[in-house]
């Protein structure tokens, strides 16, 4: 009462009522006053992530590009356009692009690119009792059993198929 130089309690009550109407304060169940938006605080509209520092630098350090994902040794990677259906059961279709790594040591079960009669061929590499054969993934084709030394040029790393 001293602060506003009010002479009666009634005046105070009226002011408090106005302030409640303006949602600046409210009353609890015992009639005590509670501050509401008195100090210019911001209304919380729900949680959003804006306002945090730009995530680009810190958080994107540990992501890789699709190139890095598909390729392991950049300098040794070549691409090759698939034609034919000899690897159809391995899910490799005519028109697919395969990324291959040249000079990589090949092991049993790898899909490899070999040189056969002046052409590239893509087959599963199988090593059976010290013998190496090239296995197609299609029953219509016969395995290739090389008569002479087999030249394996590259190992398939990934397959790409673009629809649109």
């Amino acid at each position, binding site marked *: 009462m001293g602060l506003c130089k009010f002479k009666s309690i009634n005046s105070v009550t009226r002011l408090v009522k106005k302030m409640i109407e303006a949602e600046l304060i409210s009353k609890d169940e015992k009639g005590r006053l509670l501050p509401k938006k008195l100090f210019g605080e911001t209304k919380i509209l729900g949680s959003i992530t804006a306002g945090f520092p730009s995530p680009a630098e810190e958080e994107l350090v540990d992501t890789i590009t699709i190139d890095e994902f598909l390729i392991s040794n950049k300098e*040794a990677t*070549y*691409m*090759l356009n698939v034609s*034919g259906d000899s690897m159809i059961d391995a899910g490799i279709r005519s028109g697919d*692009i395969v990324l291959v790594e040249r*000079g990589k040591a090949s092991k049993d079960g790898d899909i490899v690119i070999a040189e056969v009669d*002046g052409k*590239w061929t893509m087959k599963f590499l199988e090593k059976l009792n010290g013998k190496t054969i090239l296995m197609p993934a299609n029953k219509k084709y016969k395995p290739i059993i090389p008569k002479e030394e087999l030249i394996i040029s590259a190992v398939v790393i990934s397959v790409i198929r*673009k629809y649109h």
Partner: protein
Amino acid sequence: MPNETLSINSFNRAIIHIDGDAFFASCEQSRDPALKGKPVITGRERGIAASLSYEAKARGVRRGMRIFEIKKICPEAIILPSDYETYSLLSKRFFEIVRRYTSEVEEYSIDECFADITGLRRPLRMSYPKIAEKIKQDLDRELGFTFSVGLGPNKTIAKIGSKWKKPSGLTVIPGYQIHEFLAQKETEDVWGIGPQTGAYLKNERINTALEFAHKDEEWVRRKFTKPTIETWQELNGKFILPLDVTGRTTYTSVQKVRTFTPPSNDRDFIFSQLAKNIENACIKLRRYNLRARNATFFLKLQSFRYAGMEIQFSRPTAIPSEIINVVEKYFDQIFDQSLSYRATGIAFFKLEEDVTKQLDLFCEVLRAKGLKKLYHSIDEINDKFGKHTVHLGVSSLANSALQHEKERGDAPLRKTLQIKGENKRQRIGIPMFIGAVT
């Protein structure tokens, strides 16, 4: 004296020089097994052999030979159009593989580099010859063709090493063995000694590189200029010539030349060809943020003679429309309707960095600034949609016509193998294996 060692050290510095064997032809053979073991020649679009496989060399084909001559002496030759895109991709890989071992790599040309491996024995736990061998193995295996390597105490000796045994050689020349190699080398075969100097040395009765190396310094300094003196020092095992590892950051001249067939006497077509070259050269200038003060343009006649003219611009520029306007004035002075032409070319000299200059009297600079902005946008459009998406009207004839008639006009195979998502101008930057894959 003749057999005395030139240096008592092995490798004060360890420099290697690596040279791709028959680089362009090898790029072709390595991606298509059908070409292996066959005489392969590239450069069909130029009508001459630009690169030839060892099989072609063995049949007597030489670099620069005309295609019809080649067909006579080697009818089974496979003559391919150059695929510079693929060669450049493989060239970059070549340098990147060498950089796995050392960052000190000088990209000397598309198929050659120098590398400094001094001090790497301990970190790599290998001797110098072993490091050279490892690099060679990586290159041969991952690029699918062979490289020749020379190891020496400096660039000059390393280069003698890489040439010593080709293809697929690895020649190690420690300082104390230099003299054995130089005794078998003619002076002219040494990098840095041209035919002029070679002829002069012969007059002085100096035939082998060793005889030259044994000449005393005072004599060499009196007779020659700096480059030859430096070569003499390097032949004596000293490390003089540093490696330029900065890569190409700038140029002192830029030129673009293009041949077309059949030869033509159509003034507009020929001028259009020249305009396209000017546009291309300007693209390169702008890429390196350069402007040219002087230019020479030339027309190559069917008779293989040249007609040309040098011009100077009132201010340095990299804006093709300005240059073409100037060139057109002089073009008609040298163009002769009664003659046939087979190529046009432009060369820019006196290049300087493109920084805004003081205002001139007629506010030309302001206009130039506008053009600069315009061309900046054009460069961005062309980067995105492919070269020449936006070009000057005057180049249209050259852009719409085939550059070559008949077989010389065949595009490199890779350009005809378009993958879904690629367009006529832009392809995925990964070399492709070619030939049936089943």
